[in-house]
């Protein structure tokens, strides 16, 4: 019914390098072409729409800085998911871990401790990392020790964390002066400094760059990195090599959740300065798309995060200018992920004609 009659799939020995570069680019173009259909259906000119999207994200200095603001959490969630997926820890919970980080950062920030920024800010980063790590550790521990399906636990914990945040925002932390549920502002000394004048780009982006370097060294240069790759590739063989796969999964869950938590810290301390329940428009889920489009590869994740920062930021401009529903950005993300996945087949296999 679906086997290709005259062709045969053959496993590639080593995929050529140009493939790794060309494939994501091609996936992006094909995904935009498919998304164009959905724009055309509602009577919008796709070319004009994409022009608005790219100009809205890259057209002037302000647009570019706003794209960088979006890229900051996306790089972090992308790295968080990529490290997790490398070990086959199916962390779909970056969204909840981001909220855990945001919650912890707010908790520390609204205490208004008499601390200088040089101490307050690192403390914020630390509690955010710990909160995200602990939230993810629950799922990691359950997977590693008790074989509880990590996809379901990490997913459901997103809902639980978001409800926790909403409950707190509607209850003890409710700022009486705001119309929508929001916490009171965090301490001024806990605010991330701006690093580009007259823009919203904040020091959180340095954390993102750090996370990229961290991932590179972790995966390429450390023993743990090797253990992560081995555990992900074949847990039985890894176990045979003397790798403690249970421990590896647990450590990965901590690292992955912690990095996702940092994304939440950045949104609270660098963008909003208070906590709202809509602090993430799905950055955690976008992290999955980014990790996959980037081929779980460090540079790939960075480029994919920048691309989706363009899509998410640009879609807002396109939405306002052309009255296109903002959700087109989710449609593009989903399609890109699916197209990329289909193309991975050609990455692993080559098609040979069978005589």
């Amino acid at each position, binding site marked *: *019914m*679906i*086997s290709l009659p005259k062709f045969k*799939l053959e496993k590639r020995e080593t995929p050529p390098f140009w493939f790794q570069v060309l494939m994501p680019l091609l996936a992006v173009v094909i995904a935009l072409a498919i998304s164009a259909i*959905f724009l055309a259906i*509602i009577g919008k000119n796709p070319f004009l729409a994409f022009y608005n999207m790219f100009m809205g994200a890259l057209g002037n200095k302000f647009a570019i800085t706003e794209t960088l603001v979006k890229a900051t959490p996306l790089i972090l969630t992308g790295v968080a998911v990529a490290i997790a997926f490398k070990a086959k820890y*199916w962390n*779909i919970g970056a969204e909840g871990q981001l909220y855990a980080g945001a919650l912890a950062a707010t908790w520390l920030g609204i205490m208004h401790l008499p601390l200088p920024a040089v101490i307050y800010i690192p403390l914020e980063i630390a509690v955010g990392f710990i909160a995200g790590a602990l939230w993810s550790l629950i799922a990691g521990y*359950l997977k590693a020790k*008790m*074989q*509880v*399906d990590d*996809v*379901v*636990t990490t*997913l*459901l*914990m997103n*809902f*639980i964390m978001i*409800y*926790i945040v*909403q*409950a*707190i925002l*509607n*209850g003890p932390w409710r700022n009486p002066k705001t119309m929508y549920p929001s916490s009171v502002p965090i301490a001024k000394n806990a605010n991330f400094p701006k690093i580009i004048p007259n823009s919203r780009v904040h020091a959180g982006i340095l954390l993102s760059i750090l996370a990229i370097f961290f991932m590179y060294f972790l995966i390429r240069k450390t023993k743990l990195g090797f253990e992560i790759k081995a555990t992900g590739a074949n847990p039985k063989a890894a176990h045979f090599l003397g790798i403690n796969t249970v421990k590896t999964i647990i450590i990965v869950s901590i690292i992955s959740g912690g990095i996702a938590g940092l994304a939440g810290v950045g949104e609270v301390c660098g963008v909003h300065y208070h906590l709202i329940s809509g602090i993430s428009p799905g950055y955690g*889920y976008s992290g*999955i*798309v980014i990790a*996959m489009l980037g081929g779980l590869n460090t540079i790939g994740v960075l480029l994919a995060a920048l691309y989706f920062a363009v899509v998410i930021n640009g879609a807002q401009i396109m939405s306002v200018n052309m009255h296109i*529903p*903002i*959700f*087109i*950005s*989710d*449609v*593009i*993300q*989903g*399609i890109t*992920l*699916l197209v990329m*996945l*289909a193309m*991975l*087949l050609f990455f692993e296999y080559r098609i040979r004609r069978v005589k």
Partner: protein
Amino acid sequence: MSIAAVSSFVIWFISATIRMATPLVLATIGETFAERAGILNLGIEGTMLMGALTGFLVTYFTKSLWLGVLMAAVVGLLFGLLMAFFAVTLGVNQHVSGLGITIFATGLAYYTYRAVIGSPTVPPSIKAFSTLKIPLLWKIPVLGPIFFNQYALTYIAFLLVPLSSYVIFKTTFGLSLRAVGENPESADAVGINVYKIRYISMIIAGTLMGVAGSFFTLCEFNMFLYNIVGGRGWVAIALVIFANWMPWKVLGGALFFGGIDVLGLRLQSSAIKIPYQIYLMLPYLFTIIVLILVARNASYPAALLKPYRRE
């Protein structure tokens, strides 16, 4: 409380539990078919949302509730085919393709709603299904109002439990289904078309998920709301494990979670001063606890997540 008040509460509670269990039964039975054939369909959440949207829009424009259900089934079927294309034809990672489908379908549902309806301050509504009283039977004291005054979709969902149990365990198709989910190579060796069986199972799965979604907009609510499926698809994924891939056990699991849902809604409107979000998170919390309890005894279909390629 008087005895009359207690008994009317009990009747209301059980009847509401059965009602709330309906989409879970439909979606979980659907997912059971998919996983029995060896495919984890994480597209479930998005497929249900598309079902909810389609049911609403079709009914909104045609005023026909059953046409809404039918089209929700068709759209669900199409998303089942999409998942089958990735998991069966291409044989790529099922986790990621399922999530991709959910991200795509979720975006598409909200995109379509916004494009067609816009964002009015008062969301448009339809006249939803009313309950279908089974003649004579609904007049039986206690049992009547509990079991025989439900939505038509609820009767269908609960009748599907014995039906699907029969199909899976007593028919040739069911035998093939289990064979391709356990050992596709052997199934192929005895002449079963693995691809075909997997495609059929994904069509069944997607259709049921689409109908499950339409329950939200056509029965439970009478409009399409943001986050209307609210993770019920993920709960269904967990229920399949809880039920050990057995349709009959789906019933117990779905009723349990339906009950928690009802309790949550009830407590939410009561005077107790606890943030209502605590109740909303209960189903997810219980799902995780249940998963922990059954994890060690779960007997996954052996070929789950494994693509099959004929050499």
